[in-house]
């Protein structure tokens, strides 16, 4: 029998948009006007030289006005999708379009110790355990270091972080360093693991997260990293962080315009340094300072989604943030904020979504919170699937066969298909009595036990001994 049916259209997933394309265009024009008219300060000579040579106007020593044409030109050479490999060089993440991948954040000062419940300074072993957990969790796609190790020499703490990530997961890793030299060493380590400079460039399994003071002020380290990594062809994010009400006007649109003008300036520089250098846009926009508490909220609803829309409009991959909370505990607020933020980023199609498991506005982390986020992501993966309304899934023949009076529980159709439905691992569905029999545990307790089980059972594929030694040698002899 022929099965032809014209004009079929299937929604493959739910989808949302907050900025219309017209609004994105207006925002883009605003950024171009800022770059041409107001200009940005750049505290790095090579950046100034490159821009000047390309036709930008430099006044007052380091104030650069960038013509729109340079921005348009940069869009014609920058890749629209960034592939990150795993540690073994196999493609693992294709960041672009509406594909979402999730990972942890970096550099929390504190940990809520899941064994003792204590709130304390984090140490190197916390990073080892956190990254091991990332390696094991199905819905965590990339790792950032999560914690600051308070028990190592502080000025080279970032080298220890990179080493711990390389040793404890095969998933892609994204690094953050304070100084430029730290980024140089992180790349050296990654090159050793990849088997050389060319190998890493061809199959990058790592990317660098760079923060910039504001869209209008580009600090030296950020520019140094941008130029160095662009030259190397290693993917990077370039994220100015003006705060509405303090270092930018308080409206979401203005803060986004200021920051994204800076993102475009970085884009131009990256492509001037090397055409085709991979470059990732920020996926949140419109940071604010909470004017009561003076905290910069990570899970602020108003800074979500529009930057993802803007990146989509420009056809660029985005690096966004979700699964984070202002709560000081793994409590109801933490779960609600994590779920809401993960939900929005999945729905809007942020590409590399980081900060999963953050508490206390980026100052504290918790392993059980990460495990809870993994469960939320599992739920979301099931939710985001489209509905199959096909002849087969409608199963009209079986409906007819069983009729109004029959049972489906023991039918072949059920047997064949029931496992395709979603089952929770941590969310409790059992009856009250059964839940009681299992110890009357709440989600936090179950997540804590799950952390212990994973840490006891999961074996990370180790780096070859000589490679691990060569990586460690960099920690012992860091670039000054």
């Amino acid at each position, binding site marked *: 029998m022929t099965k032809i049916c014209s004009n079929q259209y299937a929604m493959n997933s739910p989808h949302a948009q907050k900025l219309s394309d017209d609004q994105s265009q207006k925002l883009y024009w605003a950024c171009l006007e800022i770059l041409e008219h107001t200009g940005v300060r750049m505290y790095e000579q090579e950046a100034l030289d490159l821009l000047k040579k390309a036709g930008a106007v430099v006044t007052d020593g380091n104030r650069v006005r960038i013509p729109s044409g340079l921005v348009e030109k940069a869009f014609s050479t920058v890749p629209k999708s960034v592939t990150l490999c795993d540690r073994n060089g196999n493609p693992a993440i294709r960041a672009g379009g509406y594909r979402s991948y999730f990972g942890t954040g970096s550099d929390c*000062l504190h940990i809520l110790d899941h064994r003792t419940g204590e709130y304390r300074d984090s140490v190197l072993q916390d990073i080892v355990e956190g990254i091991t957990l990332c390696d094991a969790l199905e819905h965590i796609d990339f790792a950032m270091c999560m914690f*600051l190790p*308070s028990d190592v020499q*502080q*000025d080279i*703490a970032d080298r220890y972080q990179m080493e711990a990530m390389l040793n404890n997961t095969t998933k892609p890793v994204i690094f953050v360093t*304070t*100084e430029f030299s730290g980024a140089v060493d992180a790349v050296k380590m990654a090159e050793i693991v990849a088997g050389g400079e060319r190998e890493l460039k061809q199959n990058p399994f790592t990317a660098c997260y760079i923060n910039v*003071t504001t869209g209008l002020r580009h*600090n030296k380290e950020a520019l140094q990293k941008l130029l160095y990594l662009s030259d190397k062809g290693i993917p990077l994010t370039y994220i100015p962080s003006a*705060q509405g*009400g*303090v*270092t930018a006007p308080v409206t979401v649109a203005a803060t986004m315009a200021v920051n994204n003008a800076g993102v475009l300036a970085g884009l131009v520089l990256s492509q001037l340094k090397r055409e085709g250098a991979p470059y990732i846009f920020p996926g949140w926009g419109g940071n604010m*300072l909470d*004017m*009561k*508490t*003076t905290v*910069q909220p990570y899970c602020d609803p108003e800074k979500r989604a529009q930057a993802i829309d803007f990146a989509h409009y420009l056809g660029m991959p985005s690096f966004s943030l979700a699964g984070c909370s202002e709560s000081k505990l793994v409590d109801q607020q933490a779960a609600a904020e994590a779920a809401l933020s993960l939900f929005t980023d999945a729905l809007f199609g942020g590409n590399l979504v980081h900060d999963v498991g953050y508490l206390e506005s980026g*100052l504290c982390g918790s392993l059980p919170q990460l495990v809870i986020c993994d469960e939320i992501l599992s739920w979301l993966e099931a939710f985001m699937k489209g509905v199959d309304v096909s002849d087969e899934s409608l199963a009209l023949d079986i409906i007819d066969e069983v009729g109004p009076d029959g049972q489906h529980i023991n039918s072949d159709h059920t047997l064949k298909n029931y496992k395709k439905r979603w089952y929770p691992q941590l969310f409790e569905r059992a009856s009250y009595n059964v839940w009681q029999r299992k110890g009357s545990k709440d989600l936090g307790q179950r997540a804590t036990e799950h952390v212990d089980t994973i840490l006891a059972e999961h074996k990370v594929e180790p780096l070859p001994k000589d490679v691990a030694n060569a990586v460690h040698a960099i920690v012992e002899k860091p670039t000054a």
Partner: protein
Amino acid sequence: MADFQNIIDTLIEGDQEKLLSLAQSALDEGISAKEILEKGLMAGMDIVGEKMEAEDMFIPEVLMCARAMTAVINNLLKPLLAAGDVSAAGKVIIGTVKGDLHDIGKNLVAMMLESAGFEVYNLGADILPDKYVEEIKDKNADILCMSALLTTTMPMMKVTIDAVSEAGLRDQVKVMIGGAPVSQDFAEQIGADGYASDAGSAIRLAKEIMKR
């Protein structure tokens, strides 16, 4: 009997025009500038400070109150006050330490100290120890405030304190430190005189430190 309560309430509302006219009528009634300052304006700002710490007021509102108060002092009271009546609560040098560019919190603390009556010299971010030393000397400062948001730059606080000691200025200035990774323990470890976790308590600490 002057209506100080009205002045206090108006200050808390941040209504500069009304505050100016109330202060003018009080002066016309023969109330001294000193009394208006102390029983009206200062009393009002104390309440503003408390409200801020109780999360009862937003930072921009606090700054508006401070602006209203300054307008009254500069436009009406200053010529009438005896020298000494309106002396600053203290002279403060403030900056973010070398290597650190986080300045949002530091700037907030600077503004809040200013609105509490301190004379504040805000040096900016990424400040070398020698620069602090130079400014302390130059401005004859009472308090040195340092901010650090990175664990990697916290040690610069100790380096700066050592530089201040070496320059023979440690007895002249009290040292206050703050920033997300900084703690009371750390302050004690490096020999600072105080630590505060937010702008509200920073003001309280600065006032208290001036009395030591």
